[in-house]
């Protein structure tokens, strides 16, 4: 089982958050376009929150903002009531772990070596590798069910295994909070399940997990709390069962469908999906794909 040190109580929230690119470091993009404006969110402690929405709706930007990869133009993100901008980087890395969407590991890096990186926030110049670090790495390996593969190189593993290894690195940071950006998007069904089951076990161990997910069915099935985003705004949030409606799906993705209930788990299932034929929905799609271009 995962060791948990912090009691979790409404850990991460954002107020009146505005995020965008083309701001701050070295004028990377010219547009002053805001991806997210006036957003408020509060993440339930000890639960899995899934952020869903069409491409370019600002899901990843929001996650990056919550993890302080982007400084907000306006508003603030609070971690346990403290403005995240005022927390030293290293301390933040002991309280919040982030797995970005794009990662890459140098060739020849083994699983155990990767996971050891997760201990860096706990190390200092005079405080090198400790027994505690070794113990945490072992338990992260066990949590991600990778103990037998500890010495395999990442490039010799399946996508799902590799993804679990990256999550294990975040686990080794021993943060009460984990933010995962689309950890399942490039995986096939079986490998997706590997990752989702790992995420569930993290929540079961008391961690708060935020996960950006593409597949709505999986989000409904594995998340306790669903946040639906469209064009930089949150248009619905709550328990998947309560939130997912045909109207929402039309607004989010421009689709019509029949909603069923999973006979075993009770989570919503999308059946008979088709593109909604209204011109409104088409406009919505165009707007969101443009947002995708400028936000990517």
């Amino acid at each position, binding site marked *: 089982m995962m060791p948990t040190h912090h009691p979790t109580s409404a850990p991460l929230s954002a107020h009146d958050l505005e995020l965008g690119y083309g701001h701050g470091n070295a004028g990377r993009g010219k547009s002053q376009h805001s991806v997210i404006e006036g957003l408020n969110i509060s993440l339930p402690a000890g639960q899995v929150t899934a952020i869903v929405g069409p491409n370019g709706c600002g899901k990843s930007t929001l996650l990056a903002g919550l993890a302080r990869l982007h400084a907000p133009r306006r508003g603030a993100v609070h971690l346990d009531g403290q403005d995240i901008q005022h927390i030293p980087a290293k301390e933040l890395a002991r309280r919040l772990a*982030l797995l970005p969407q794009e990662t890459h590991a140098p*060739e*020849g890096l083994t699983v155990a070596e*990767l996971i050891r990186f997760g201990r*860096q926030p706990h190390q200092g110049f005079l405080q090198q590798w400790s027994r505690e670090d070794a113990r945490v790495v072992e338990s992260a390996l066990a949590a991600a069910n990778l103990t037998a593969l*500890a010495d395999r190189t990442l490039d010799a593993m399946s996508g799902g295994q590799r993804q679990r290894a990256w999550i294990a690195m975040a686990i080794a940071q021993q943060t009460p909070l984990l933010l995962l950006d689309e950890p399942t998007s490039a995986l096939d069904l079986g490998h997706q399940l590997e990752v989702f089951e790992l995420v569930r076990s993290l929540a079961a161990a008391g961690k708060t997990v935020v996960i950006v997910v593409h597949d709505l069915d999986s989000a409904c099935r594995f998340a306790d709390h669903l946040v639906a985003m469209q064009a930089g705004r949150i248009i619905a949030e709550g328990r998947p069962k309560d939130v997912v409606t045909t109207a929402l799906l039309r607004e989010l993705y421009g689709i019509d469908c029949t909603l069923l209930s999973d006979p075993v788990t009770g989570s919503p299932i999308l059946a008979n999906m088709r593109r909604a034929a209204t011109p409104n929905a088409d406009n919505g799609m165009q707007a969101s794909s443009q947002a995708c271009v400028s936000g990517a």
Partner: protein
Amino acid sequence: MTRHPRGGSLAPGIINQTPADGAPRGERRRALTVTVMWLIAALALLCLTSLLIGAGEVGPLTSLATLVGHPIGAATGSDEARFVMTELRGPRTLVGLAVGASLGIAGALLQAVARNPLAEPGLLGVSAGSAFAIAVALVLGASAATLRVSVAQLGAVCGCAFVLGASRLNAVGQDPIRLVLTGAVLSGLLGALTSLLLLMDQRAADEIRFWLVGSLAGRRLADLQAILPSLALAATITLTIARPLSALALGERVAVGLGHHPRRVRLLAIAVVAMLVGAATAVAGPIAFVGLVVPFAARAIAGPDIRRTLWLALILGPMVVIAADIVARVVVAPSELSLGVITALIGAPVLIAVVRSRRLPTL
């Protein structure tokens, strides 16, 4: 360098199939320790050889007899041999140690920062920047050895700035080979300007010519003393940034997520590269390829983590430079080849091998 979305299928690595892949962790580590022991022994042997062998009349046996203090066979020690070893070969070997370590570490750091296995201070024009700065200083009338070090470091900073600027350009930064071509242009340009300056000033030309080809011949302990402060500072900074640098290999965002400051770390690493390359160039002239060969070999032995690569570079760098220097003394005795020629002979095939491998190793 390849970036892939996590989970995408990846061809297995071509360059770096770690030999101990799959072996238990302890065993892998032990194998590395044994290798390092052997390398240290080999370095010691090379240093000894460097003391004993030269282009001049004092032969190896005479030198050895002088060193151990009693005759070996027909050879007996001599005052001449003692002088040659303490005044010429000894300092030369020590300078070789410092230069080799500097260039090896600088190469490993620059490659990590540029995320490019071909980023080598010599190839990218950092050494040429140093050399040009020194030529300018000489033409302007300078000659002191200590001044030379700071001037060379200033030139190296400019070279580094150019390299980093170039690697920010999209097409150049993404493609390791383009970066090297850009560096070659800079090197060529600075080399031409240096020659032009020397044509205009005969005194400077005389003073600098023996130095400009890259050599350890005639270097004294004073030369070493002049660079020791910068080497010590560079070593200290390197120790503090090794861990964040290793995390940067996992990507900028991951490094931030682990509590590091990528920009600060990169700037410090570049400062160290400039310090080391400037120091090495001030003492030995521009020597290419050491910063390419050494990290390449270090990664092949110890894997991709820069924290290990750096320690190995500290051993392998001096090995390459001292071995090349011995060869330079021996092949055309009683004359000497320039050290730069030998390192180029070793380095060029490695460069070709790296470029030819279908996929450049990711850093």
